[in-house]
């Protein structure tokens, strides 16, 4: 199989090629073509193919990560969207949960009021109402009103329509009927139903999820159409799959309908790339640590797979999104994070970032504020000549100047200030990891930290020491880790059904029946996507809570028929999960099932691992010896430090810090007291020692 992974970021388009038979891997990086990213995607594949003698028509699969939808929301540049909803409830999208995002602010903006995804004039109401018991019809759907509403929306020039009715997660009949009517009356419209994208209770969150889908829908669909026809023109006949936030891929047809599923696909692919690095080193428990210029993304991988975000905890640009997503914790901490002293005298780092323009002072593009990168330059950890493979010469004096200015205000030395900046940032990052591990009953001492992104390997050891994580893995290509991750995915669909039921009055036959019917639907979809039957697998979950609670926890359920016997194990597992999550369980309280859920997976061909060559002679890997500042024996001091070229390090040879490891996409900093080795499959492994 010949596989392509193409990840489009804000600055670069990364292309990763793997031939699973010949075990060839080639990578390529080119600037993203912002006006139409599809151009860069195709160009990247063609360029890589030409450089390495790959025939484009022989490519089997393309896995693609896109931020088209995400950017449309961040830039608030989407389709003119209309809504059809229940009479009497026109403003659910506007009122939200009636809570202000900030406690202590008069001048704040409320995202859904300040930047409405559907303006009020484009929200039309119709008579209909369902009830909570089984989605019973309290008031039938008035089709004449629906048709009138569709005509009004068409008149208003709305190109995307969302349909959101109360209790549609139990009974989608009315929403689906409206879809039929829209297809008759206004077939050009992009249509989204709330039950279609997120059949779960909580109307504001569900309707907002549908609105996000409607808002980005036409744009994403247009992009995919462009890309598909561009591929055809370039004679690339490979199957195209698109990365989703849940860590799986979906077909272009599916994404064209539910683009909301791609909103966090970039960081999701990063976590997959991190997980793959774990596979290469045979490690099962991983903390992925992806640090770029402005933010750090943290994910957890265990034997059970990825942590998944609770439906209530995912937000984009201030809007709630209720779709399955890998649990990714993002904080504003990266290479460009700015260090400053605030009005009251506190020394802070981030979340403000210098970004890429003007960027850190050391970039020499006019940045005048001290950043993380500048601190690393002052400590000698970022090398003037070897940044981005020598493509960008760092302005060392500029970095020293901005850090010195800050140091004066702090009454500290320049070097202490630089170290202090890193300490504050590293602690912020460690706290973010703590929230996802220690606070959920997981012990970081049992995990490996997989560090990637441009700045991850610069900070990994300090963060690991803070949390007593014993080992760090740096993948072979830390800068294109998401593109690597794309080649490790499967087709993956999540379906969900709200099913309020109590553990002391269960109706197992309904549960069994509903699980079966969800699975049948999924199977149909996967077969339609041309997955062979033997490559299809299903995982069942139930989302439940103690009766009266408002937050659910996800419990894996067995794939066989539920019986009075095996259901007890499931509930015991819930108690256990609750205890891990919150430190407490309430075993005599009845459990309420809220949602049942099935994840259907269609196995896809994957990247094949490959041995690295390296050099047999360590001397060849040594670039130079320089002074770098490290804290050693309690003092910040200059230490003679060898700089190595990553690709030339001999595999299997253990080496000692202090060391700096250079490669084009990142720099790895190894303070004294740590040992490291390059493994045969390309990972750099660091054994984290105590602070010496």
């Amino acid at each position, binding site marked *: 199989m010949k596989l392509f992974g193409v990840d489009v970021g804000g600055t670069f388009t990364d292309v990763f090629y793997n031939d699973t038979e010949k075990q060839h891997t080639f990578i390529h990086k080119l600037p993203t073509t912002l006006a139409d990213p599809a151009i860069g995607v195709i160009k990247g594949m063609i360029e890589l193919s030409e450089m390495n003698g790959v025939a484009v028509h022989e490519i089997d699969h393309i896995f693609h990560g896109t931020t088209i939808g995400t950017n449309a929301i961040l830039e608030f540049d989407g389709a003119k969207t209309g809504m059809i909803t229940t009479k009497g*409830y026109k403003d659910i999208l506007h009122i939200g949960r009636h809570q202000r995002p900030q*406690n202590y602010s008069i001048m704040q*903006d409320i995202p859904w009021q300040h930047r409405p995804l559907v303006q009020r004039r484009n929200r039309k109401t119709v008579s209909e109402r369902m009830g909570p018991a089984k989605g019973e019809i309290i008031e039938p759907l008035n089709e004449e009103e629906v048709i009138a509403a569709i005509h009004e929306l068409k008149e208003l020039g709305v190109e995307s329509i969302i349909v959101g009715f109360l209790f549609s997660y139990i009974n989608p009949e009315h929403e689906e009927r409206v879809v039929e009517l829209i297809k008759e009356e206004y077939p050009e419209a992009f249509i989204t139903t709330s039950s279609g994208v997120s059949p779960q209770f909580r*109307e504001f969150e569900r309707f907002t999820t549908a609105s996000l889908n409607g808002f980005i829908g036409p744009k994403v669909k247009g992009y995919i159409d462009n890309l598909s026809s561009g591929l055809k023109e370039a004679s690339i006949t490979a199957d195209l799959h698109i990365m989703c936030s849940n860590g799986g891929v979906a077909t272009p047809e599916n994404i064209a309908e539910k683009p909301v599923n791609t909103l966090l696909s970039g960081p999701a692919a990063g976590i997959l790339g991190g997980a793959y690095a774990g596979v290469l080193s045979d490690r099962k428990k991983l903390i992925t640590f992806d640090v770029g210029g402005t933010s750090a993304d943290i994910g957890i991988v265990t034997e059970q797979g990825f942590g998944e975000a609770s439906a209530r905890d995912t937000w984009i640009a201030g809007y709630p999104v209720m779709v399955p997503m890998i649990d990714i914790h993002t904080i504003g901490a990266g290479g460009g994070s700015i260090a400053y002293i605030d009005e*009251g005298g506190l020394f802070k780092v981030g979340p403000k970032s210098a970004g890429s323009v003007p960027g850190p002072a050391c970039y020499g593009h006019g940045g005048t504020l001290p950043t993380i990168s500048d601190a690393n330059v002052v400590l000698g950890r970022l090398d003037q000549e070897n940044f981005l493979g020598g493509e960008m010469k760092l302005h060392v004096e500029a970095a020293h100047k901005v850090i010195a200015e800050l140091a004066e205000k702090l009454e500290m030395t320049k070097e202490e200030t630089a170290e202090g900046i890193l300490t504050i940032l590293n602690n912020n990052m460690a706290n973010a990891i703590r929230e996802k591990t220690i606070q959920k009953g997981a012990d970081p001492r049992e995990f490996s930290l997989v560090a990637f992104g441009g700045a991850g390997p610069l900070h990994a050891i300090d963060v690991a020491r803070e949390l007593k994580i014993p080992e760090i893995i740096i993948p072979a290509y830390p800068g294109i880790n998401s593109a690597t991750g794309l080649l490790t995915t499967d087709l993956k669909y999540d379906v969900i059904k709200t099913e309020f039921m109590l553990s002391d009055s269960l109706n197992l036959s309904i549960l069994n029946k509903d699980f079966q019917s969800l699975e049948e639907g999924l199977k149909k979809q996967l077969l339609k996507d041309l997955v062979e039957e033997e490559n299809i697998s299903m995982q069942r979950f139930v989302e439940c809570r103690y009766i009266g609670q408002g937050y659910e926890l996800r419990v894996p359920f067995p794939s066989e028929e539920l019986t009075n016997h095996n259901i007890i194990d499931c509930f015991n597992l819930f108690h256990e999960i609750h205890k891990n999550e919150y430190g*407490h369980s309430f075993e005599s309280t009845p459990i309420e099932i809220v949602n049942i859920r099935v994840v259907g997976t269609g196995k896809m061909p994957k990247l094949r691992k490959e041995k690295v060559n390296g050099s047999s002679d360590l001397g060849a890997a040594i670039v130079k010896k320089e002074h770098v500042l490290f804290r050693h024996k309690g003092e910040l001091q200059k230490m003679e430090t060898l700089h190595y070229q990553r690709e030339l390090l001999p595999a299997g040879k253990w080496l000692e810090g202090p060391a700096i490891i250079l490669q084009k996409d990142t720099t790895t900093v190894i303070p004294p007291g740590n040992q490291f080795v390059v493994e045969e499959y390309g990972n750099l492994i660091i054994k984290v020692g105590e602070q010496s």
Partner: protein
Amino acid sequence: MSTKISKVIDPVTMQVVLGALENAAIEMGHKLARMSYSSIIRESEDFGCALVDIKGRQLCESTHSTPLQSGPIPGYVKGIRQVMEERGDQFEPGDVILHNSTYHGASHGPDFGLCIPVFYEKSLIGFSVTTAHHLDVGASTPGSCGIVDAVDAYAEGLQFKAIKVYEKGKKNTFVWNILEDNIRSSDLVVGDIGAQIAAARIGVERYLEIINKYGLETVEATAEGLTNYSEKMMRNAINKLPDGEYYAEGLMDGYLDSDDPTKKDLKIAVTLKVQGDQLVVDLTGTSRQIDDKPINMPLEGTVDIAIYLTLRSILLDSEDYGNFPQNTGLTRPITIIAPEGTLCNPIFPAPTIARFCQGNVVADTLMRALAEVVPKQVSAGVGNLKVLAMSGKKGKDYWVYMDIMEGSYGGRYGKDGMDSVDTLYANTRNNPIEDIESHYPLRVTKYELRNHDCAPGKWRGGIGSIREITFLENGSFSLEGDGHKYEPWGFADGKDGKVGDLSIRYPDGTEKKLPSKISNTTVQSGSSLKMTGPCGGGYGNPLERSPQAVYEDYLDDYILIEQVKEEYGVVITEEGTLDLNETDKLRKSLSRLY
């Protein structure tokens, strides 16, 4: 100039310890919200968490909670210590203390504080505390809101003055039995107390981890540094204000249906005295306390929080200043004067349980006094909230549901008012309709913005909402609210807002308008309550509002075509387009009339 705020530890360590402390509080809040049972805590987020050191300084608070719950925590601790000392009682390792005494720091009776003393190397070094609003406290009628007729503090339900529910690690079963026997829906209430204790225990654990890692001295020095820091921030902010005295008053409904004139049309008076970096908030002139109605406000726990929070939100708006530690340092430059025996400083046993809405008027009036000084940092008058308690029989017990009805903000400099949100010192969340109807015999039959009622202004006032709830079984309800009589104030030529309202529609279709305070009243199945939230005041002359913004409001049906013309002087043609030339002419002629 030296920017150092601590002489003992370096700024890096301080920032690192601060991060660890905040992380602990976030964890407490997160876990409390998720473990709790009643919707008032888990959905409305009416809870708070904080760690407090031995000197009573708050070290950190959960960001994920309502300010009226976290803010009072140091006061709870102070009250508990005072009671314990008076009794000659000792804190012991393993104790868990329940406290809700409003004359000893608690915000009001239903807000239970669960406090765990933290010991390090056998000495008491601080406290881990959670507070949360409970569904029922064993008052005369079901629910813990809308108890607007309690005649004194004893009639408000159970009073816990520093009661050890765990003593040296052992469960004090007597107390728990009393709780279970005297509280409606006690399984939920007891479950929520359990969740509060579990979250407070997590706080203890994290507090000790932090001390073990950084040392007690460092943590103490951090506390000192943070307090100095917050104090400095507040002093800087006050220093920017011109010295002088600024006065405003706010009026409240009280009991509009009462024959007794001392029980209605109540006044909050605020004189703000700015001198250098100090500020005095003098409430002299505020109405007398009402001896036998529970709308008096505890000075500590309600009035002080309303004041600190408003000053902070205006002078140190997090939109500009980001988040920084809420602690006693913020309050050091501020002196509150509240004459005893007034609504803002009642004398025991004056009842206080329904103090919620009055506190927001204190906040709003303070903002009005500040409007003169910092016109670009305030909003025009804010529309007040209502709390509706609904209940009914369920077997031998009750179901109880509390719905917090939002208000709205006034217009702001450069921005319209926030529509339909919780206001000022409250910041809870509404309950999803789909959650309410799945769990109670209720139907939410309408939830929409008010049409055509927003206050005109260069920046218009926020829009209130209408929420209608129908009983599907026989039950009862009570209400504490305000803002039915006095409109939210317009500012700088902006128009006043619109008052709120409540009405009931009986099963036979007849309707009746109700006042803003109603004690427990039984209703038949099929009865509907319609709550109307007030609209905040307008800011600036409406004739200066951007014609495009007026046009957009018209398109969104916030205003009618007549209002476009009469209130804003904007002309929309018969084809429905904006006519800027005619608008210009009309506005000129209208401004001559003024």
